[in-house]
């Protein structure tokens, strides 16, 4: 009862700062490794990812095939390496497209306010009323399965988070003195938005974008698994897991390695995002 514990330990700023840095560096290293693998796939991959070898079907991992072969005798290691190209491209395009839409909408809504703002925010409300993945599947469903249509679906659905983030920041920034000063000096609205407002809202959306990339890649691979994303025989990790599913008992390696690839790539993105936000929180 008289147990007056001292308040939660207050961490000195320095170790926390280092903490965030280590995390971000670890994440960046993972991402860099995957980028090198993706760009150098032609050099690193021991085989053609789509070369069939019907003699060496379902071979367990050995010296010739480090990750084994799948049901068509394709080299799993080569497919995992080439798959990095597809999944990283998907993460990149799938973040840039909604980011571009969302930032534009957020800037316009926040800066001009009034009726424009009301209408745009109503559209946001309506979009978030749909479960994210369901709306993506529905759009891919009517447009037809495929990676490009997945990116289009993301541009139509995932922009709302960016729009909300940017709008909230703009509402703060536009009251600051330098923006008021720019306006008083007679700069046009587009100039003020692009030169003075936009650079100041980029920080928070950058942090969000790293986490968003994980969601985009996981959702995209899920679509590939369901047969709605990248189409076979494309070496996409979700597609590879779907390919390996019927054989997982006798040939566990087909499913295991693409999954580990996804975990490490996502981990890279999350660590960078976490590290960056921790560092910002301390320095702010």
């Amino acid at each position, binding site marked *: 009862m008289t147990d007056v514990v001292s308040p939660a330990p207050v961490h000195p700023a320095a170790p926390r700062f280092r903490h965030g840095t280590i995390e971000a560096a670890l994440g960046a290293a993972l991402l860099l490794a995957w980028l090198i693998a993706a760009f150098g796939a032609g050099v690193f991959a021991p085989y053609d990812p789509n070369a069939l070898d019907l003699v060496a079907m379902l071979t367990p991992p050995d010296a010739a095939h480090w990750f084994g072969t799948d049901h068509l005798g394709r080299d799993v290691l080569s497919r995992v390496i080439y798959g990095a190209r597809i999944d990283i491209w998907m993460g990149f395009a799938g973040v840039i497209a909604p980011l571009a839409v969302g930032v534009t909408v957020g800037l316009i809504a926040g800066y001009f306010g009034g009726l424009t703002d009301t209408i745009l925010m109503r559209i946001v409300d309506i979009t978030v009323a749909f479960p994210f993945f369901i*709306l993506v*599947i*529905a759009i891919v469903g009517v447009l*037809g*399965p495929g990676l490009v249509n997945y990116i289009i679906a993301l541009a139509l659905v995932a922009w709302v988070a960016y729009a909300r983030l940017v709008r909230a920041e703009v509402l703060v920034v536009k009251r600051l003195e330098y923006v008021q000063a720019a306006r008083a000096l007679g700069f046009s609205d587009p100039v003020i938005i692009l030169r003075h407002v936009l650079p100041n809202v980029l920080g928070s959306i950058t942090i969000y974008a790293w986490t968003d990339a994980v969601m985009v890649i996981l959702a995209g691979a*899920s679509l590939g698994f369901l047969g709605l994303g990248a189409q076979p025989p494309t070496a996409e990790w979700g597609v590879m897991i779907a390919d390996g599913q019927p054989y997982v008992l006798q040939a566990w390696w087909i499913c295991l390695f693409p*999954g580990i690839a996804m975990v490490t790539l996502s*981990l890279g993105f999350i660590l960078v995002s976490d590290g960056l936000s921790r560092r910002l929180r301390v320095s702010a």
Partner: protein
Amino acid sequence: MNSITFIGRRLLQIVPVLIGISLVSFFLIMMIPGDPVRIVLGPRATEAAVAAMRQEWGLDRPIWAQYLSYVGNTLTGDLGQSLKFRVPVLDLVLQYLPRTMFLVAYVLVLSLPATILMAVIAARNEGRWPDQLIRVISILGMTIPVFWLGVLFARYFGVKLGWFPVSGYGEGFVDHLHHLFLPAVSTSLWLAPLLTRNLRAALIEQTEADYVAASRAKGLPEGYIFRRHILRNSVLPTLNLLGVMIAFLIGGSVVVEIVYAVPGLGALMVGSVLGRDYFVIQGLTLVYAIATVAITLAIDIFTAAIDPRTSE
């Protein structure tokens, strides 16, 4: 009285959202590249057949008239006919819905206690090893693809060890629990970490609140402060998050239902996308959105009921 006004106002706010939802699901069909009638009838359809179907579907009328009759039909529960199953879409939805609801409830029952336990342990040991461990677990949970875990679980626990059935839904309550155990666990392993991260953040934020400092100054024991003040005040933000997560969960159930062959709404959705069963896609999208809005509304009202401050 006050809460009735609040509920009334909240219901009014929903009207424009519902109109928006109906517009989106209406225009979804318009996004089909090419002529939907020709896609449905196939390339060898005669002009007369195409014209007849166009008239039957009302596609020869102006677009606003089509929209109005779509809304009218929807309000009377007519979501159109499935092109594949040749039955009303609403019947299909009602047939598949209970399985998904059972799965979602199962996931919540498994995830919530784990979430609360992990978040409380992490928040009370902020920065120390239990917190770090839980942080690592929660980051891993966010990066592991549910469908991959599902495939491995189904084969290992289902086929190899034979502990659980790997497909279907079973007969009767206990059998449902048995059939849906692996799907529910796979989903929980993804949901619980997400919830834990947020509840932990809410708990720590409350720890730094003024009233906690005041309670400490009064000399109240730390455990008492935590249970009586911090935990209680962290319930509301978590409840709101839960509403968002249920919507996420409904979306996430799609993949799990496919992996474990659970005949729920998600499996129906994927089946109709692959089979180009457009009216089922449209109807399901609408049902999902209305369910999400209803859940959000229920949580808002519930929040207002337990905390009158929010309805002011």
